[in-house]
């Protein structure tokens, strides 16, 4: 497995308090990694350490397989980032803002500026001064700047902050398109669960500086779909009958004699009657669904949008 970004017990301490505490992040090549956490959880601090804007107290950051002491300033050529705000020079036009970036990144071809303007749909606003742009357009200008040099890793800190629903949708579609078409690895932070869930392949949950969980979004979804939960006194026998009589194969048995059935919920009444007839005592039968919110709230003990 190729990892673009890894942290190893990364820690940041301010005045003796660990604001980021021994976190191990693993971002695979080509994936969208959602770094989820409430405001003040330590997301931006972590990103600032990754971007080399603040030093870590301890731990290691590995970018493109190289640890910090092996990295040179050249590795920034492979990273595009928006950290906290999509900053721009207000007195300059959209085009000039990008031209500065192009020159500083050492990209000789001026056409790249036009290419990225097309990509983020800002071509019509290329002569507009940055101070005249709406928040959504500023965000897109920031994304354009972070993409202009064709980075392998895109780091976006709260990329939809302050955007209206339409703007959020546009950014979401753009990022998905970038990941799919351009094979860019995207590391994005957010405090909005639905945003991360819709975009990310892997979710890392940070809470009070601790990385509580790093899990593939698909697995989270699997863990949180509808199921029929029955508690019986003879789970093994019950499972045999479920397979034989109802052709139910998608189920799991957990401790406390609980069977979770992930299909054919409409048969709940019949299952109940049948198992009773076969001398299996059904103590509890209920259709359950854990929402993603429930899942993350359980993880963090509350405090997720």
């Amino acid at each position, binding site marked *: 497995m190729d990892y673009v970004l890894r942290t190893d017990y990364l820690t940041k301490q301010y005045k003796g308090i660990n604001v980021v505490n021994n976190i191990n992040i693993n971002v695979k090549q080509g994936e969208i990694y959602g770094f989820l956490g409430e405001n003040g959880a330590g997301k931006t601090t972590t990103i600032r350490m990754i*971007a080399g804007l*603040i030093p870590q107290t301890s731990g290691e950051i590995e970018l493109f397989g190289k640890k910090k002491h092996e990295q040179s*300033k050249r590795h920034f050529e492979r990273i595009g980032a928006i950290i906290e705000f*999509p*900053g721009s020079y207000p007195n300059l036009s959209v085009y*000039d803002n990008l031209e500065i970036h192009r020159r500083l990144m*050492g990209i000789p071809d001026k056409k790249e500026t036009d290419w990225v303007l097309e990509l983020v749909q800002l071509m019509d606003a290329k002569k507009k001064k940055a101070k005249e742009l709406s928040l959504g357009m500023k965000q897109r200008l920031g994304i354009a700047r972070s993409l202009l040099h064709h980075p392998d890793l895109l780091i976006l800190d709260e990329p939809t902050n302050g955007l209206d629903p339409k703007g959020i949708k546009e950014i979401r579609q753009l990022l998905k398109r970038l990941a799919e078409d351009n094979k860019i690895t995207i590391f994005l932070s957010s405090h909005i669960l639905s945003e991360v869930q819709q975009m990310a392949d892997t979710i890392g949950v940070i809470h009070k500086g601790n990385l509580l969980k790093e899990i593939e979004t698909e697995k989270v979804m699997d863990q949180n779909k509808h199921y029929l939960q029955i508690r019986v006194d003879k789970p093994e026998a019950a499972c045999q009958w479920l397979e034989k009589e109802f052709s139910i194969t998608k189920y799991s048995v957990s401790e406390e004699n609980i069977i979770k059935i992930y299909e054919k919920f409409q048969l709940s009444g019949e299952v109940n009657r049948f198992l009773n007839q076969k001398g299996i005592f059904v103590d509890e039968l209920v259709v359950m669904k854990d929402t993603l919110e429930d899942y993350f709230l359980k993880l963090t003990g509350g405090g997720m949008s």
Partner: protein
Amino acid sequence: MRSILYSELIKLKGSKILWMVAVGAFLPAILLLLTASNIVHSGRHLTFLMLIQNAFFFLNLIMGPPLFCLIAGFVVARENQDKTINQLFMYPQSRVLFCLGKWFVLLPIIFITILLLFILVILMGAVYFHLPITASQFIHYLLTVLLVIALQWLLTPLSMGVSMVGKSYIPSMVLGIAMVLCSIFAFQSEKYNSFFPYSAVANLMYNWLGEPITQFHLITSFLTITITFVATLIFCTIYYARSSIHNG
């Protein structure tokens, strides 16, 4: 370094701070016009040397410190205020070069301001007051202008450093105003006038123009400016290279 200089120059495009160039040139010229008119009306003899001396007194001790401190502060602190500092420090270039780039871009601004003032003074003297000026005098005054440009530029790392630490151009403005007060008081004291950077600039300028300034003052003034320049430029480069960006 070329791309850094280009970017620093283009960042000034359409910036309101460039109006300060006009202020820096026209305000001393207006003050000079008033002063020179008073001299003429009082029946005293007005010379080109007097115009140059007065113009650069206004510039070096009254207008220069707050003006150039403000511009230097703006060039540095705008990265924090426009929230572009994160991106700036993520370019594959040395932060020291960015610091030097910001210092270098101040040179054309100072150059244009002072040269514009010089042109206004020459026009005022030749056209308005009909004062005679020889070619050698003109060249001598022009060299004075170049000296003042160089000395004012050497003092800009001082305000750059203050803005870096304060992450705003307000502290450098305050520094500029404080420098005006200190320098005006210091300039009147022969004992201390060489120890303040801006009054030291005035010392060197008067010495170049042929004013009677003692050797001690000359060397001390030169040392004051050199030490201020070297120390503050080293501070700026180290501070920029090592600074952490916690917000912005």
